């Protein structure tokens, strides 16, 4: 009885070890490809992309990648996580050294299908982030800023905007333009009712 269980477990373990060894490279390649695609999407082409760098500020950790060419920084891709409507909302935000948002892409979200989930697909919403200038205010229009919200998804739009603002704050800190990262985590009480 015990012998049989042991034998089955050993066999299965061996099989899994084999499959794991065989697929290991492919899995790594796939996740690397996905990461590079998301970075490539949000930063200007032609730069050499660095390894992941982590920045710890107060209770928040940011992961970012630097794209550089001939020793000159082309831009930063910052992974920014905030609390959305249905759970964590993770973005890759490309920011140029002068604070301009080059582009954004959604890495993962758990927003409501058909409503908040549009933050990844709604053409007008997605397009406004392309080249969003540093001079404009990273707040929703109804909060007195310059960002157009997705209809009926104010909380998601607000969270998205916050994620971008956090990324911009990180870059401002990295570029030495501000003393600390002025980031908040979103979906707190002041964001109620939307």
């Amino acid at each position: 009885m015990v012998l049989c269980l042991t034998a089955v477990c050993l066999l299965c373990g061996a099989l899994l070890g084999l499959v794991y060894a065989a697929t290991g490279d492919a899995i790594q390649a796939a996740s690397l490809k996905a990461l590079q695609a998301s970075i490539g999407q949000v930063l200007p082409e032609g730069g050499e992309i660095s390894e992941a760098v982590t920045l710890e500020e107060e209770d928040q950790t940011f992961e970012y990648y630097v794209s550089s060419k001939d020793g000159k920084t082309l831009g930063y891709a910052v992974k920014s996580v905030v609390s959305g409507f249905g759970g964590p909302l993770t973005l890759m935000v490309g920011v140029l050294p002068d604070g301009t948002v080059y582009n954004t892409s959604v890495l993962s979200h758990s927003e409501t299908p058909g409503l908040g989930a549009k933050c990844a697909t709604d053409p007008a919403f997605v397009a406004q982030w392309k080249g969003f200038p540093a001079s404009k205010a990273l707040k929703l229009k109804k909060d007195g800023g310059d960002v157009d919200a997705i209809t009926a998804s104010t909380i998601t739009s607000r969270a998205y905007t916050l994620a971008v603002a956090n990324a911009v704050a990180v870059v401002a800190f990295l570029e030495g333009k501000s003393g600390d990262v002025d980031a908040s985590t979103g979906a707190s009480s002041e964001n109620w009712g939307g």
Partner: protein
Amino acid sequence: MEYFLIIISAIFVNNILLAQFLGICPFLGVSNRLSTATGMSGAVCFVITLATVVTYLVNRYLLVPFGLEFLQTIAFILVIASLVQIVEIVLKKISPSLYQALGIFLPLITTNCAVLGVAITVVSKEFTFGGAAHMLNLGEAVVYAFATSLGYGLAMVLFAGLREHLASNNVPKMFRGLPIALITVSIMAMAFLGFSGMV
């Protein structure tokens, strides 16, 4: 405050049955009578909390240090299956009355995907409970698991109550049994949608 948010979120906002679709089979299977539904909820509550603690520790101190995360599924299901067996044996010895109440449900729980589902969610998903996104620590994981199973019990008991009344109604033949039950759950799920976005 954070624990409070975890509890509200797990019971109402992300109710395991009505929003996450975990553990539906026993939900439909044993919700015919209020008494069995209560017994099942109790057993699930017990096993989910215990299993989450053990799988959390197994993952943290065995799988991750040795780079064996790919064995997560198989390790967790074995832990859960043995745990259910142990609970059954211990309960029989220590508290026969509790065993009488929960015992018949225990063997069913191994294949209740709510248990494995919560165990995997706790170790693999980042949460934001009003703060920065982070993986749960052991304390939060226990609270999350317990609250989730309370949510399971809540939905189960509410539904069993509704279903007892449904049984005495004259339902069209093609809807009798599960179809009308599913439509009832749908309306319950719609009510629970009202909680979304609260946390």
